[in-house]
């Protein structure tokens, strides 16, 4: 196998989402443990089989040392990389690349978060901000949550392309339509366009119902060398392509017409050797409705500026032969563990490729799926990562 591409180099054989949405009394380590054990059991592997571990920068302790010690995990390759909500989509690519290079054979990726426990409703990661904050309204620390930054992008999209608040609302309506079939969903019940428009403005033009939920929880993935996958006999997802990108304020030459999803997806498609035309299921990070709208355009499902038209009238459901998006109800309804979206995006894509999604939303003969994540602030500075997956059986 060539090692200059990771197309086909690794298979996701384990995927597990924490079943709970509120975890009072839990430590982050316990959430990590439960999702990792869940994903390993799903794959038919044990903790002793794991030789690589990937997580985000929020894990307590010295890098990944304290968590691997707690778990009794002996690894020879590890990363605690921070790309916000894109982290876990990126980690699929990083794990596949490490496997392709012969650095490891059984990689675990994990996410745990307890924002409800801490009462943190701002979704703002506590970090020591860089030098730009000296010039951005004297530092945005404390001024507003990420929502206003996403809203700046939404406002500009409306100005440039005539996108409407009602069109954004349809993204929430579709999520609720899918969440109806998910008994674990944090929010339940039908949502109408009017419900979204009539919910209080949080940061114009985004309303409360344009925002994702805040939940505890987590998830984990097991990504292995194809030889290991063969020995397990478990269905899964072959990694066909991966791409990631950053977008920032570009030295002051602002352009809000696209996000880092665009270059990330282009790289992933190039590695896979095909484009959006083959994708039958799509997981898109939905921190806010505008995040999905931009991703629909940037991943090539709608032309630039036509995302609003695309999402109208249940456009993100299977209705009319469309590619369904976030069939678990997504972050807008189902869950958003640790204020981070990428993990659940990959998990639902794996369910779809295995034929294990909720029957009402299962895509028939789902062979190809894509999952995309975005981290931090969509207007000012963010990461994006995309993976292209193929059914493995």
């Amino acid at each position, binding site marked *: 196998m060539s090692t200059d591409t990771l197309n086909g180099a690794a298979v996701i054989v384990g995927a597990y989402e924490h079943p709970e949405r509120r975890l009072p009394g839990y430590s982050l380590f316990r959430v990590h443990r439960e999702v990792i054990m869940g994903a390993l059991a799903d794959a038919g592997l044990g903790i002793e089989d794991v030789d690589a571990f990937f997580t985000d920068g929020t894990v307590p302790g010295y890098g990944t040392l304290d968590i691997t010690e707690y778990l009794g995990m002996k690894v020879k390759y590890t990363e605690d990389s921070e790309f916000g909500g894109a982290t876990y989509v990126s980690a699929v690519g990083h794990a596949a690349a490490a496997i392709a290079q012969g650095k490891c054979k059984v990689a675990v990726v994990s996410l745990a978060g307890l924002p409800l426990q801490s009462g943190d409703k*701002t979704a703002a990661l506590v970090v020591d901000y860089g*030098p*730009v*904050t*000296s*010039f*951005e*309204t*004297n*530092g*945005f*620390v*404390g*001024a*507003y*949550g990420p*929502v*206003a*930054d996403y*809203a*700046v*992008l*939404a*406002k*500009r999209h409306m*100005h440039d392309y005539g996108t409407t608040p009602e069109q954004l609302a349809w993204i929430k309506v579709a999520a609720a339509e899918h969440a109806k079939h998910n008994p674990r969903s944090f929010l339940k019940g039908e949502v109408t366009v009017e419900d979204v428009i009539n919910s*209080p*403005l*949080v*940061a*114009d*033009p*985004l309303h409360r119902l344009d925002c994702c939920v805040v939940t505890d929880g987590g998830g984990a993935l097991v990504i292995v060398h194809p030889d290991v996958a063969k020995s397990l006999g478990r269905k899964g997802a072959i990694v066909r392509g991966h791409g990631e990108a950053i977008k920032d*304020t570009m*030295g*002051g*030459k*602002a352009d*809000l017409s696209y996000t880092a999803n665009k270059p990330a997806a282009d790289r992933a498609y190039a590695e896979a050797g095909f484009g959006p035309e083959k994708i039958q299921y799509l997981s898109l990070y939905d921190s806010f409705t505008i995040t999905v709208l931009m991703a629909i355009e940037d991943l090539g499902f709608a032309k630039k500026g036509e995302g609003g038209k695309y999402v109208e009238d249940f456009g993100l459901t299977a209705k009319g032969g469309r590619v369904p998006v976030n069939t678990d109800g997504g972050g807008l309804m189902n869950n958003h563990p640790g204020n981070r979206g990428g993990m659940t995006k990959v998990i639902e894509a794996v369910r779809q490729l295995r034929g294990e999604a909720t029957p009402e939303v299962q895509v028939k003969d789902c062979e190809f799926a894509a999952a995309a994540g975005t981290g931090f602030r969509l*207007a*000012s500075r963010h990461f994006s990562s995309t993976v292209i997956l193929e059914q493995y059986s």
Partner: protein
Amino acid sequence: MSDTSIHIGHGLPTKPFPKMDPEVEPYWAGAREGKVVLPYCADCSDYFWYPRGFCPRCGGTSIEWRDSAGTGTLFSYSVPRRSFGLWKDHAPFIVAWVTLDEGITLATNLMDVDLDSVEIGMRVRPVFEQDDPEDAPVLRYVPA
């Protein structure tokens, strides 16, 4: 629309004191005199933002600090309806992206304006806010 009655005032927080990078002292020296001073790269012959001691496009260090009128147009904006920390009692306020006439866009606040008269493309001019003489002067905007 209920927005018709909302007037956005001024007097937004100017704390905490920002990190001061000695390489960009000309920007702050200008700000203390109420002048917008912008970094200009002599190698690429263009402005950049935010101020740094080198050009983020070409890596060059031939930086000129040029006086600017600071005027520009509103590129986009949002109106946070609630906030926290020092800003808790200041919502709603306007987060504004302003494109200066020099072609660079910066994130700031738009103030002293009725919410229903705010529109992308409107002309704006700079003001420096400073709650307290110990604070750094913060670049903000009002309608031109």
